[in-house]
């Protein structure tokens, strides 16, 4: 087990280094920030001064080296546009994104697993078919367009909920600004969270349904039936426990994907999170912020994947065995 964890961790570090190089070289090849960031009316001396201040006069390897040294000290460069450290700019926005992602995930889990179970146990019933039709719809509706439609109906037509922003926040533990502690915050959170949850909700429904359908055909279910166990016990204990392993894994992995997809929802609802910052920064060619965002999200992903892998191998010993053989 320890060998597995160590090997898996080393692999994660290798991926992180490769991604940082890829992202850095890629992003630093985009356009020419000098043209965008420096006043066109500036004279030659001003220009050179600005270029030196931003470190753009040095060669690419030199820039990468100073970037890596900085990154190791938690310094991911200064935003060209905001003139503040890129890292703190992103960390400032992180609670908003995390709150949105967690709210969406909770909605998806609380609704998705019971609905999926129902559809899996009664696939031919009207309710089962309706749930599946709904999940296909959830898959087919593009997130950004659903967001627009939510704004159209609930903000413009009905006027019930605000269409953008986060509203006033309350500090949790005195440091983390959150929306869910005030009514006004809930009103702002509702539409973006529902919007972000829809796709994951559809995914969880299908996953639970497929798992339940396959589990019901297994011998252990037939055996449990033959033993005369109650239906509630067969489903609640035997079926649910067996389908929960893949579901928990997917929930873990999807947390990262929700954070990535928050980019879209944040752009639609002007939610002041990291994703909106990224899109704004791409538009302004604010490279330190783009690089910092990508590195932070890649790191986040690698950590999530690592934790899920280790948990999964702890839950299911077969994974460990095949890994060490392969």
């Amino acid at each position, binding site marked *: 087990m320890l060998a597995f964890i160590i090997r898996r961790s080393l692999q994660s570090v290798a991926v992180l280094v490769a991604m940082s190089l890829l992202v850095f070289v890629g992003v630093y090849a985009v356009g020419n920030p000098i043209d965008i960031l420096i006043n066109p009316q500036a004279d030659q001396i001003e220009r050179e001064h600005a270029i030196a201040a931003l470190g753009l006069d040095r060669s690419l390897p030199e820039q990468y080296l100073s970037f890596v040294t900085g990154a190791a000290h938690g310094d991911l460069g200064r935003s060209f546009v905001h003139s503040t450290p890129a890292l703190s700019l992103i960390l400032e926005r992180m609670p908003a994104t995390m709150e949105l992602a967690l709210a969406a995930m909770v909605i998806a889990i609380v609704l998705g697993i019971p609905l999926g179970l129902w559809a899996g146990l009664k696939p031919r019933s009207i309710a089962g078919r309706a749930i599946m039709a709904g999940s296909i719809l959830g898959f087919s509706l593009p997130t950004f367009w659903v967001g627009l439609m939510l704004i159209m109906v609930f903000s413009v037509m009905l006027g019930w909920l605000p269409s953008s922003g986060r509203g006033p926040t309350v500090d949790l533990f005195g440091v983390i600004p959150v929306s869910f502690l005030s009514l006004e915050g809930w009103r702002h959170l509702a539409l973006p969270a529902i919007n972000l949850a829809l796709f994951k909700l559809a995914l969880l429904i299908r996953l639970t349904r497929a798992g339940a359908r396959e589990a019901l055909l297994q011998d252990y279910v037939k055996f449990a039936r033959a033993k005369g166990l109650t239906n509630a016990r067969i489903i609640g204990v035997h079926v649910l426990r067996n389908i929960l392993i893949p579901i928990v894994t997917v929930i873990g992995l999807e947390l990262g994907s929700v954070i*990535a997809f928050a980019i879209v929802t944040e752009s639609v609802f002007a939610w002041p999170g990291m994703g909106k910052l990224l899109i704004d920064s791409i538009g302004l060619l604010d490279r330190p912020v783009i690089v910092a965002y990508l590195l932070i999200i890649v790191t986040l992903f690698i950590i999530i994947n690592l934790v899920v892998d280790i948990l999964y191998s702890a839950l299911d010993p077969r994974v460990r065995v095949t890994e060490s053989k392969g």
Partner: protein
Amino acid sequence: MPGAVSRRAVETPLRRIAGDFASDAIAMAGLALLCAIIAAALLAPFISPQNPYDLSQLDVMEGRLPPGSPAPHGVYWLGTDDQGRDMLSAILYGLRISLGVGVVATGFALVIGLVMGLTAASMGGRMEALIMRVVDIQLSFPAILIALILLAVLGQGTGKIVLALVTVQWAYYARTVRSAALVEQRKEYMEAARGLGLRPARIVFRHLLPNCLPPMIVVATVQVASAIALEATLSFLGLGLPITEPSLGLLIANGYQYLLSGKYWISFFPGIALVCTILSINLVADQLRDVLNPRLQR
């Protein structure tokens, strides 16, 4: 049940699949909708009332008219956008671009994925480990993130968005075809083919590949839909196709700013077209998956 066996024996696989497919009314409705959408996209230049790219046909004075307003050529059934463009025509042409980009990207990704997956499965060893490691790492990141990184790096353009979609998708095919090929390779007909001394290329292309196709068809169908959705999303975020050739995503983005003042149609109708396209493809894919999945056949 000897009767069932002999009846199955005279059926060709294709007939059986077609028969199973037609047994579900919703799937058939999806197929009909999809055919109608493809026909509308192909025939756009002949059936649309206006050429939305021809600036001389546009009149800014006719901008943002609600659906049903009178037009020089008849009626603006779906209204006009801020440039005075007939929304119906813009949607028909946008459908062409969205479908085209999705199909072309899926085609390239399918070929690359097939080659990589078959190479991994038939060569084994280090090559297989290398290819599958890359696939694993890539699939551990969501498609939208990889596409965003690429477009942030490459800039905009039709070719670049196709490249981004191909990069995002090839790994799905590689993984699917490899796992199918590994299963097939252990079967007796493959052993027989090897025993006959057939050339490796012949074994791979005539025997292995056709038997790996069913799961690939399902994945490819789903991926066309997700490619179209991803392209629309990227275009909406302003990172996709250029404004000169608006796809459905860009049309929706155009209407975003007018939505808050109640001019819903500029975003609403292109979105409906997009949803119908993706939904019909997903309905077809869903039924294909059930029909082609041996595990659900009892």
